[in-house]
C-alpha cells in the first residue's frame, strides 16, 4: 500500500513538474523580484539605488498616474456593463429557435477572435474623421460625426465602442447559460400570466447570474489590462485622454527606463485588480443565485 502511493507521489510530481518549475521561474521569482524592484531606482543601464518607498510616494503625487487610473476606470465602467448588456442581448437573440442561428452565432463571435494590432489598424481607419466608415454611417442619419481619435472628448468613447464589437466570449458564456435553463420554469410562469419582461427579470436573470458573475470578473480584469488598442491607435493621446494604465506602465518601464517605478505601478495595479475581484466575489452572495438543481449544460461536440 505504502509503496504504491509513494510511487504515485513521485510520478505525480514528475507529471506536474513542468508547471512547478514554470511557476517558480516565471511567476514566483519574478513577483518577488518585482516587489524588491519597486523599492529601487532601477535603470537597466546604471546600478540600482535603494530608495525605499519613494517610488510609491512619487506615484501618489504623479498626475499622470491618476490620469491613467481615471482613463482606465472610465473605460472599465463604460465598456464592461455595456459589453455585458450587448452580450446578453446577442445571446438571447441566438437562443431563440430560429432557422440560420448558427450562421449568426459565427458572425457575432468572429470579431472577438481577431483582437490585436490588425484590428486596431482597421478601427483607426474606421474612426478617421474625414473618410472613415463611422462618420459616413452617422452622416446617413444626418449627424456630423466628431473627430473621434483626434478629440480629447471622443477618443475614449471610440475605444469603448470598439470594445463592444468584441464581446463574443461573454456572449458564448451567456448562451451556454441560457441553454441550461429549465424550460418548465417558463411554461409555468407563462401559464401564471407572467409577461416576457417579468419572465426575464424573475427567471432568466437570477438563473443566469453565475454566468453574469463570471463575465463580470473576466471583463473587469480584462479592461484593466487594455494595451494594444491604445498603443497602436492613440499612443495615449490626444493630451493623455487615452493614457491607459498598462500603457503608462509600459512607457515608464521601456521608454523612460524607470524599471523600479514601473514595478511599483504594476504592484498597485495588482492590488486594484485583487481588491475589485474580492469585492465582486464578496458581493456575489447577495446577487448570484446558485441552484443545485439547475444542470450545467454538457459541452456539445
Amino acid at each position, binding site marked *: 500500500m505504502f509503496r504504491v502511493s509513494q510511487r*504515485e*507521489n513521485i*510520478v*505525480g510530481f*514528475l*507529471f*506536474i513538474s*513542468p*508547471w512547478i518549475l*514554470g511557476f517558480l521561474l*516565471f*511567476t514566483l521569482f*519574478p513577483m518577488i523580484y*518585482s516587489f524588491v*524592484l519597486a523599492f529601487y531606482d532601477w535603470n537597466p543601464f546604471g546600478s540600482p539605488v535603494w530608495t525605499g518607498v519613494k517610488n510609491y510616494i512619487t506615484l501618489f503625487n504623479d498626475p499622470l498616474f491618476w490620469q491613467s487610473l481615471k482613463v482606465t476606470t472610465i473605460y472599465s465602467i463604460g465598456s464592461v456593463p455595456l459589453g455585458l448588456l450587448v452580450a446578453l442581448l446577442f445571446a438571447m437573440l*441566438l437562443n*431563440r429557435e*430560429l432557422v440560420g442561428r448558427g450562421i*449568426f*452565432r*459565427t*458572425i*457575432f463571435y*468572429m*470579431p472577438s*477572435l*481577431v483582437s*490585436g*494590432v*490588425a*484590428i486596431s*489598424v*482597421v*478601427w*483607426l*481607419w474606421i474612426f*478617421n474623421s474625414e*473618410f472613415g466608415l463611422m462618420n*459616413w454611417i452617422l452622416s446617413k442619419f444626418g449627424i456630423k460625426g466628431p473627430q473621434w481619435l483626434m478629440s480629447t472628448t471622443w477618443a475614449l468613447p471610440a475605444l469603448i465602442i470598439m470594445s463592444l*464589437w468584441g464581446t463574443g*466570449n461573454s456572449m*458564448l*458564456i451567456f448562451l*451556454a*447559460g441560457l441553454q441550461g435553463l429549465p424550460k418548465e420554469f417558463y411554461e409555468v410562469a407563462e401559464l401564471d400570466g407572467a409577461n416576457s419582461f417579468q419572465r426575464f427579470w424573475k427567471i432568466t436573470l437570477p438563473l443566469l447570474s453565475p454566468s453574469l*458573475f463570471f463575465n463580470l470578473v473576466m471583463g473587469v480584469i480584462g479592461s484593466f489590462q487594455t*494595451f*494594444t488598442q491604445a*498603443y497602436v491607435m492613440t499612443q495615449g493621446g490626444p493630451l493623455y485622454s487615452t493614457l491607459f494604465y*498598462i500603457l503608462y506602465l*509600459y512607457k515608464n*518601464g*521601456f521608454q523612460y527606463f524607470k*524599471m523600479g517605478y514601473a514595478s511599483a505601478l*504594476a504592484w498597485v*495595479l*495588482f492590488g486594484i485588480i*485583487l481588491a475589485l*475581484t474580492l469585492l465582486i466575489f464578496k458581493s456575489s452572495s447577495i446577487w448570484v443565485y446558485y441552484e443545485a438543481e439547475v444542470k450545467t449544460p454538457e*459541452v456539445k461536440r
Partner: protein
Amino acid sequence: MIIVQDITESSINKFLGRKSMRKLVGDIFCYILLISIGIAMLLPFLWMISSSLKSRGDVFIFPPEWIPKPIRWHNYVEAMTTVPFGRFIKNSIQITILVIIGQVVSSSLVAFGFARLRFIGKNILFMILLSTMMIPYHVTLIPLFITFRKIGWINTFKPLIIPAYFGSPFFIFLLRQYIMTIPLAFDDAAKIDGCGYFQLFYKIIVPLIKPVLITITIFSFLWTWNDFMGPLIYINDMEKFTVTLGLNLFRYSYGTEWHLLMAASTIALLPCLVIFFIAQRYIIGGIVLSGLKQ
C-alpha cells in the same frame, strides 16, 4: 361542468392562438435585429477588404464606394514588399509552431497529473495554479525583461518560446476539467493490462481528450499569432519582427497609405479567420467549458 370545460378550452385555444401570433411577430423582430447586428459585425471586415483593393486616391473619396473600380489586387503585392512582410510571416509561423508544441505537450502532462494522480499537496498546488490565472501578466513583465536581458535572450525568440514549455495555467485547467469527466474504469482497465502511468496517459487519455487538445491548439495559435506586447518588448531587429510588429511598423512609417495598411491587415488576419471557420466548434466548446467552472 360543461360550461367550465368550455371556458377553459376556449381560453386555452385563444391563449395558444395569441401565442403563435405573438411568436411570429417576435420571430420577425428577432430576425430584423439579428440581421442588423450581423451587418454591424461584418462591416469592419468588409470595410477593410474594400479599402485594401482601392487605389491610393480612391480611399479618400467621400462618400466611400464599397466596390472599388478598378479592383487593385496589386496592393497586396505592394504591402508585402514595402516592408519585408514575408520575413515577418515566417518569424511568426516559427514562433507560433514552437509555442503550440510547448504549451500543448506540457499542459496536457500537468493536467493529467492533477486529474489522475494522488500526491502530497495536490489540492494546495491546484489552488495556487488557479490563483496564478488572476495575476496580471504585467507584474512579472519587468523582472522577466531584466532577467532575460542578463542571460542574453533579448532580441531572440527565446523569451517568447521557452516559457511555453512550462505549461499554461488556463490550458491546464481546461484539460484537467475535461480529463475528470473520463470514467476511471478506463484507467483501471489499462492498469490491469499492465500499463504504467505514462502509457495510460499516452495511449488512453490523449486519444480521449483530442477535442480539447484541438481547442487549446487553436487558442494557443490565435494568442501567439496576435501577441503584441511580448515581441514589442523583446525584439529589436526588423529582421526578427513578427507580423504584429511589422504591422505596427507599417502603421507608423506609412500611416496615410490606408489602402496598403488595410491590405497588410487583411494578410495578418487571414490565418485567424481561416482557422476560425475550420475549427469554430472547438473554439466555442472551449469557451463554454471555461465558463462552467463555478
